[in-house]
C-alpha cells in the first residue's frame, strides 16, 4: 500500500502544488485547470483501496470489468526553471461520513504526498482551498495565504491580491484550514518543508451550496503563476466562472429582498484591507451575518 509509479521523471528543483476538493472546489479546480493548461503528465498515483470506498463499478456481459476508486494522482511538467509536480485528489479520505479528512487516514495520505515531494527534492509545497469571506460574488476574490514558516511571510506580502490572516479586519492571525489542504501544511512543517496554502475567497452565503467557484480558482492561479513565473492562459477559466455566476445570480434573485439588500452591502466590505475603512461598520457586518445565517437556517440547509 502506497504510491504506484508509472514512471519516475527527472525533475529540476521542483515545486509541489496539491489540492483536494473542499468548499466551492476552489483549490482542486485551480490545480486541475493548471494541469490541463500545462499538459502535465501523470507519473504516479496513491493506491486508493485503503482510503476510499469504490466510486464506480462497470459490469458488462455479466462480468465485473472494473471497479474504480477516487483518484489521488501526481502529474509533472518540466518548465525549464522550477519544474512542477501537481497532485490532484478527487476525494478526501474520511471516516464515518465526515465532510473533510481527519485522523489517521488523512495523516497517512498527507505523508504519502510528501514522500513523493521529498523523493523528487521539492523545495516548496503549495496547497489550495477556500476562504469563506464577507465578500460579494460580483467582487474579485482575494487570496488568503497561510505559510507554515515565519520566513515565508515577507515573500507572501509581495504577492498580488493576497492577504495574511493577520491582515483581516479585526483578525489576529488566527483561524483553521479544514481537511487535507490544511493538514498538508502542518505535516510539511513537521518534516521541515516550506509550504503555503492559498485560499480563494468565496462569499459566506455560497459556502454551503453545491456549486464550484472557479472565479476564486482563477485568483489562486494568478497568485501561483505570478509567483512561479508560469505562463498559462488563465482566461480559459472565465467561461466556467461566467456560467457559475449566472447560476449564482439566479439563486441570488430568489433570496428575499430584505436579505438581498443586506448582502448587497458586502460589495463595500473590504475585510482584508483594514487600513482603508469601508462604508460598513463592524456592527452592520455582524447584523448581515446574523441575517444571512437566519435565512439559510430557515431555508433548511446551505449557507
Amino acid at each position, binding site marked *: *500500500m502506497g504510491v504506484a509509479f508509472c514512471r519516475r521523471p527527472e525533475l529540476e528543483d521542483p515545486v509541489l502544488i496539491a489540492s483536494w476538493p473542499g468548499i466551492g472546489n476552489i483549490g482542486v479546480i485551480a490545480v486541475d485547470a493548471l494541469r490541463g493548461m500545462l499538459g502535465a503528465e501523470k507519473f504516479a498515483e496513491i493506491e486508493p*483501496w*485503503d*482510503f476510499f*470506498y*469504490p*466510486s*464506480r*463499478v*462497470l*459490469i*458488462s*456481459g*455479466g*462480468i*465485473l470489468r472494473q*471497479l474504480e476508486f477516487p483518484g489521488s494522482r501526481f502529474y509533472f511538467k518540466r518548465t525549464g526553471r522550477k519544474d512542477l509536480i501537481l497532485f490532484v485528489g478527487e476525494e478526501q479520505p474520511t*471516516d*464515518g461520513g465526515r465532510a473533510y479528512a481527519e485522523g*489517521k*487516514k488523512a495523516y*497517512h495520505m498527507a505523508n504519502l504526498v510528501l514522500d513523493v515531494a521529498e523523493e523528487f527534492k521539492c523545495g516548496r509545497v503549495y496547497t489550495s482551498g477556500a476562504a469563506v469571506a464577507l465578500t460579494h460574488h460580483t467582487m474579485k476574490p482575494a487570496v488568503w495565504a497561510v505559510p507554515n514558516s515565519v520566513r515565508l511571510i515577507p515573500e507572501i506580502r509581495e504577492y498580488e491580491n493576497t492577504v495574511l490572516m493577520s491582515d483581516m479586519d479585526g483578525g489576529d492571525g488566527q483561524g483553521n484550514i479544514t481537511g487535507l489542504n490544511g493538514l498538508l501544511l502542518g505535516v510539511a512543517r513537521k518534516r521541515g518543508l516550506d509550504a503555503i496554502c492559498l485560499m480563494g475567497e468565496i462569499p459566506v452565503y455560497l459556502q454551503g451550496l453545491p456549486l464550484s467557484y472557479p472565479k476564486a480558482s482563477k485568483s489562486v492561479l494568478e497568485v501561483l503563476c505570478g509567483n512561479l513565473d508560469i505562463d498559462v492562459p488563465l482566461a480559459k477559466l472565465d467561461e466556467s466562472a461566467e456560467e457559475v455566476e449566472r447560476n449564482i445570480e439566479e439563486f441570488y434573485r430568489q433570496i428575499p429582498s430584505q436579505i438581498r439588500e443586506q448582502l448587497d452591502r458586502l460589495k463595500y466590505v473590504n475585510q482584508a484591507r483594514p487600513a482603508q475603512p469601508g462604508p460598513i461598520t463592524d456592527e452592520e457586518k455582524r447584523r448581515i451575518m446574523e441575517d444571512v445565517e437566519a435565512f439559510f437556517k430557515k431555508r433548511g440547509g446551505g449557507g
Partner: protein
Amino acid sequence: MRREHPGRVHWNPGLDESSLVVGWSMDGGNLGRRTTDYLNRKLDGQEFAEIEPEFFFALGGVAVKDDLARFPESKFSACREHGLVVFRSDFPESEPYGFLNSVLDVAEQHCNTKELYVVGAMVGLGAHTTPRQLFAIASSEEMKEALNQYDLVDDLDYETPPGERPTPNSFLLWAAERRGIPGVSLWVPIPFYLAGMEDVQAQRKVLGFLDERLALKLDFGDLDQEIRAQNDQLARARSAFPQVDDYIGRLESNLRLSDEENGELVKRIESFLSQGG
C-alpha cells in the same frame, strides 16, 4: 497503511478445499441472513471463526431493533462434509477494504477457499407473483463460462449511476478476484413491499442455485411449504384489502404506483404479515 486484522479462529475446520458463501445481515427481504442461516441449519454448519468488530464498527453503544439489543456480528461457519464455508456479517462502517481482506484471509488461509459466492437482494418494483430471476455477475470470463449451464441471467450490463456507489458485493468480488479467488455475485429482485420482511421465494431461488452448483443435496420441502404459506398470506391480504389487491394487480401489469401508494402498500403488507396474516 492497511492494518492486519486477522479473524479470530476458534478451531480449524481442516478443509482441503472450500467454497465461500457470503451474506449480509441487513439485506433486503432478509435474504443474506436467511440464506446463510438455512445453509448452516441444513448442512450442520459449525461456527469456527469471527472477525472482531473493534476495527470496523463505531461501537458507540448498541442498536436496539425489535426490542433487542443488537451488536455487529461477523461469523464464519464450516459445513465440513460439503466443503462449504458460510460467512454472515454486518457490513463494516469503516475500513471496508481491510474488513473484506480479513474475510478472505480467514477463508483462504484456514479453509483453502477456491470460489466465492456472495448473495444480495435487489429491491424492485415487480410483484411477488412474478417468478424470481437470479442475476449473476462473475468476476472473470472463466467463472461466467463455468456458470452457463445454470438458470441464471448472466449477461447484465450496468454502470454505477452518478451520485451512487457500488455495492459491498461488487467490492468483495473485486477484492477476491484480485487475490486469485474467482467469484460470482448473485442478485435476486425482491418486491419492495417484502424488502422489510422476508422473501422466501427469493431465498429459495438463491439456495436452489447453490444446491445445484455445489451439489449440496438440500431438501427444500420446508422452504416450499413456507413459500406456499407466504403466498397464501399475501392472497389473504389481497382479499381483505381491495386497495392492496389493486396495487399488486397494477404491479403485475407492469404499472407504476405513486410514492404514496408504494408507502401504503408496504404499510399494509407489513402490518398484515407481522400479525400472522
